[in-house]
């Protein structure tokens, strides 16, 4: 069609921001798009609320997680509900439910961020080695890429939760084991993604032009191909924070989670509440909702980020 259709909802000032500061402009333009996207704002608000609650948990509640605050009886069929002292009542072990929830946020934040950081660090490293080797080329390059990709294939051949389960089983039941297990299960995802976008970038004309100018391939890869390929990986990391938080809870559900009762953890709260459902549904509903809402926040923000970084995907 020869008549230009005006972009629906597109605003010309995005193009203007793209002009200044080469190198940062893509991210800047993305930032300005994010600020105008309601999805991004909702996601950011949820994430921010989650982080703040996690950081200031001790200020929000006078109680300690895991400590029994109730002198009376807490039996499976009688769990004290909300009262003046306890905003949301107690759980079946007599701990303050609100305290457990806010400290649980802390746990989820640490687990989620560290696990994703582990996955991102090792996955990106594998991706760079693989994608870089291909881009630099030659027989050794192809060979290195082949080896790395077969390792990634092996990791991907097992469904990710089972991979995490097996790693957690080896490392024993502690915080590090959980974070490493969840993080390791993410490694192949990041590796594949980064390699893929590096390959796509490596075929683009500007790389060809740089090669024609006689710039060393290694330098092209590190200073041109990599920075231009990192976008989708950052998006994936945001989305993976959601997955990580859910999988931490899943490990708890499978009995491979943090065993220390003094550490509040949403997944374990859910498991403990499972058989007390009729008597006190809030014990399961609240931690479950907390997991889902937090995951929703990261997902919304990640999706918005993806759109902002790839204007073509907008419609």
């Amino acid at each position, binding site marked *: *069609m*020869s*008549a*230009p*259709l*005006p972009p*629906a*909802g597109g605003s010309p000032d995005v193009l203007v921001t793209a002009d200044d500061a080469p190198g940062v402009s893509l991210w800047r333009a993305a930032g300005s798009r994010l600020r105008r996207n309601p999805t991004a704002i909702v996601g950011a608000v949820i994430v921010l609320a989650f982080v703040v609650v996690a950081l200031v948990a001790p200020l929000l509640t006078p109680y300690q997680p895991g400590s029994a605050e109730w002198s009376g009886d807490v039996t499976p069929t009688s769990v004290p509900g909300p009262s003046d002292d306890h905003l949301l009542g107690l759980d079946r072990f007599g701990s303050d439910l609100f305290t457990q929830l806010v400290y649980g946020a802390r746990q989820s934040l640490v687990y989620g961020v560290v696990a994703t950081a582990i996955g991102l660090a090792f996955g990106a490293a594998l991706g760079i080695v693989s994608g870089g080797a291909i881009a630099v080329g030659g027989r050794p390059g192809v060979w290195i890429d082949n080896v790395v990709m077969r390792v990634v294939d092996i990791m991907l051949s097992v469904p990710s939760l089972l991979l995490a389960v097996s790693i957690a089983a080896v490392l024993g039941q502690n915080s590090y084991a959980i974070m490493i297990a969840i993080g390791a299960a993410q490694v192949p995802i990041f590796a594949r993604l980064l390699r893929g976008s590096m390959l796509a970038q490596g075929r683009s004309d500007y790389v060809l032009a740089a090669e024609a100018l006689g710039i060393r391939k290694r330098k092209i890869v590190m200073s041109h191909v990599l920075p231009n390929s990192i976008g989708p990986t950052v998006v994936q990391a945001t989305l993976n924070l959601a997955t990580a938080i859910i999988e931490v809870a899943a490990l708890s559900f499978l009995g491979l989670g943090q065993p220390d009762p003094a550490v509040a953890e949403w997944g374990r709260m859910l498991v403990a509440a499972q058989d007390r459902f009729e008597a006190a549904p809030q014990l399961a509903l609240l931690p479950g909702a907390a997991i889902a809402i937090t995951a929703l926040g990261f997902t919304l923000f990640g999706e918005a980020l993806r759109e902002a970084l790839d204007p073509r995907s907008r419609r």
Partner: protein
Amino acid sequence: MSRARTATRPDEPLLSVRDLSVRFGLRGQESFAAVDEVSFDINPGQHLAIVGESGSGKSVTALAVMGLLPSRGVQVSGEVLYRGTDLLTCDRRAMSRLRGSEIAMVFQDPMTSLNPVVTIGRQVAEVVQRHLKVSRSEAFERGVDLLTRVGIPDAGRRMKEYPHQLSGGMRQRVLIAIGLACEPKLLIADEPTTALDVTIQAQVLEVLKELVADTDAALLMITHDLGVVAGLCDDVRVMYSGRIVESADRDRLFAEPRHPYTGGLLRSIPRLDSPRGQRLTPIPGSPTQTIPWEQGCAFAPRCAHRADQCTDSAPPLEQSEGRALRCFHPLTGAASQQEAP
């Protein structure tokens, strides 16, 4: 073919477009007129060209006639009368009965206009099956026949192939076969050769010309290429920035263009009768250098004949001697041919 067709009186136009406007823009936003009060008639068997650069609104006009514009963010007004029925207001069912059978369209890009996962045969036969109410095998037979007529060798085998197995020229022939499959009364061809190699363009154009002549269809040719117009069309409407700026029959338009834009278009194509050594002169600037018609002549920023008047008010479309012109300072006589901008 046994199909009841209402007889058209020879003096009645087949298609009559009246004050057609198409505005783009989502609700609450400032809208933009891609097509602005365009009117023209096509008589049975007549070949009409709408000429203009990209962005002139010519393709949007064609899509509006076919009812193929997206419904969201688009406002269409005016009338598109096909044998007295307004296509803009008739219901979807009636419209889909007309499409492909009475009014058909050949699209611009053969690489993207065919469904990649459906065989050529089915894409040709489905339109036959839909409108001529024939069996699947009859539709297939007719498809083979159509492909042969548009010059595709070994049509029986090609019917079973997929678009990616055909060259661009072959695919465009398939699109022409689809367009003419039910022998429509009106064929709209939207830049049917633009996406092809120059050598293929001529062949495909020849096929189109022959088939249109064979079927007595009226043709609405959308193009930016006056060379295409010269070989194919009787009448020409020149569009600029959504409005018709000049309207004349082919011979008079080529011999004596009146609008500076038409003159510019003519000077930018090679001609057999132009003096040796004369260079082709492109129209300066680009179609994006325009002013809204409300403030004057949209072509004024690029026009060598621009006067103060041109940017003060919009020139009206004035009829005289069977042609129409929207210009305060038209080209005259020799100036229209020789003068450099």
